[in-house]
């Protein structure tokens, strides 16, 4: 067996070990089955390779034109297969219909980042899968720089209550990544000790926890009304209430770093 043939065989073997990653031909018909995946693909310049998305894949604006093949509840398999995808990227293996896609021969990649490192890793992976390694690497380098800058900032140790939902009153506990975000931004989540992702809490518990800052995602609620409510209970001079765009904080994608910067800016505002 001559050397070139050996090299070719070794390469083939490598290809089998790392399916997709070192695939000579990159995936070009991708289903983005989670909003953060969709955002990542657009951010690394792989927009042209996305053929379908699910509801809530609404950023950037171009993504809204993508055909929808399902929602957070599951994938409509037939609609998905009609788009002739070669790769589907979902946030969990348990998304309904995903296994049927797999059986139909579509490659499956799972992306469910819990930390910034995971996000960077997934963006690089997506870059490799789509042939946009360069763009992905550049993006990750920039984001890492921004993250370091945030981390170097003095930590404010402000006490934060994150009002995920007003009625029932839901917040974030130990296991959610919003909790991680709050500590990355230098704050301290007052319910960080609850071992649940989204615990329902009592108003009294919030009053007793005496947060300095209340963060309210700007979705489906009247911020002024919530502000009046919390000012009444916690005192206008003691608590700062800020609304944030939930898409920046609830999606572990390329815009999470923007959300983190906003969060830190809020936490570092001088005490009212």
């Amino acid at each position: 067996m001559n050397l070139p043939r050996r090299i070719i065989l070794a390469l083939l073997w490598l290809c089998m070990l790392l399916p997709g990653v070192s695939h000579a031909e990159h995936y070009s018909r991708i289903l983005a089955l989670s909003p953060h995946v969709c955002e990542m693909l657009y951010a690394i310049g792989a927009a042209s390779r996305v053929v379908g998305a699910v509801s809530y894949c609404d950023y950037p604006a171009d993504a809204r034109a993508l055909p929808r093949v399902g929602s957070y509840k599951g994938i409509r398999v037939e609609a998905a297969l009609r788009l002739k995808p070669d790769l589907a990227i979902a946030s969990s293996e348990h998304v309904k219909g995903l296994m049927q896609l797999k059986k139909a021969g579509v490659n499956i990649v799972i992306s469910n980042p819990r930390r910034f490192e995971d996000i960077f890793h997934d963006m690089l992976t997506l870059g490799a899968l789509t042939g946009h390694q360069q763009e992905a690497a550049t993006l990750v380098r920039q984001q890492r720089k921004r993250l370091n800058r945030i981390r170097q900032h003095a930590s404010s140790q402000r006490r934060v209550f994150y009002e995920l939902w007003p009625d029932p009153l839901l917040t974030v506990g130990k296991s959610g990544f919003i909790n991680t975000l709050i500590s990355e931004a230098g704050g301290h989540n007052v319910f960080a000790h609850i071992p649940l992702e989204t615990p329902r809490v009592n108003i009294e518990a919030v009053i007793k926890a005496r947060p300095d800052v209340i963060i309210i995602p700007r979705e489906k609620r009247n911020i002024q009304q919530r502000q009046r409510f919390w000012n009444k209970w916690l005192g206008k001079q003691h608590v700062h209430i800020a609304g944030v765009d939930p898409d920046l904080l609830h999606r572990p994608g390329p815009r999470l770093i923007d959300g983190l910067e906003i969060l830190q800016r809020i936490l570092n505002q001088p005490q009212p």
Partner: protein
Amino acid sequence: MTQHRALLVWAIVLAVSAGFFLLCLAMGEQWINPLHASGQDAMILWELRLPRLLTAFAVGGLLALAGAWFQVLLGNPLAEPYVLGVAGSASAGAVAALMWLPDTTWVMSAGAFVGAWLGIVCVMFFARSGPDKMLLAGVVLAAFWSAMLGLLLALLPEQTLFRAFSWMMGDVSGSDIPVPLLLAIWGGALLCGCLLSRSLDILLLGERHAEALGIDVQRLRQQLLFLASTVTALAVTAAGTIGFVGLVVPHFMRLLLGSLHHRVLPAAAMGGGILLMLADTIARTMIAPAELPVGILTAIIGVPVFLFLLLRRRS
């Protein structure tokens, strides 16, 4: 002699209720003595705990009263307020309102009320055909409404699901019916019940015998259905679907006090109120600072008690 005993029993019941009430008021994120509270403690006590506690009391009492009425109406001591599908139709109404109207507690309550009445009107068609057919119609309608609810939930956007689920498991903290009104409804319902109590006693003998004793059974049944349904609809509107209070409390009071309604109804109205008050206090303190839905707690308490009563009945 019996007069004195009845007075004594009532004095004890009221004292125990007052004790529980103060205890529930004092319990929370931190212990606050209701008799010596000032500043923010007083605010927490009177603006957060008291309305919630009174709502729980009124809703629990209403559910227990409705349960007692439905049991007589259907001639079945194991009936409960949701047996005719009112809970299902109210939930479907509330979720439908969430889906198509702006997302506020008020809209949801209105949806629940309309839904409850839709369910009641469906059942009313069967009011004339006797308890058995009515019960059967109710069971079938309940299945229909739960299918409708499933359909609506499947179509509901993700963010609204929290609220829908929290409502469906019962929540006395976010009622949009003012507390004094709820208490007035509680009093009015109890009064109506007491006025009807002798007719209700006679109806325990079955329709024929009741009619032979001069009761206009058709009219009584319609009044009773109307009353019980209105009360159920109001309770569901105020606090979502809370199970087992309406089943266990009247049953328990019958075991304790006999079957005559001039005793059972006031006892159920008080007992149901106290039970839900306790359940809600446990719900908000057990895993504090997190909170449990009160409907889960009433089921946890209610199911074993009910099964125990069922076993005892047979022997």
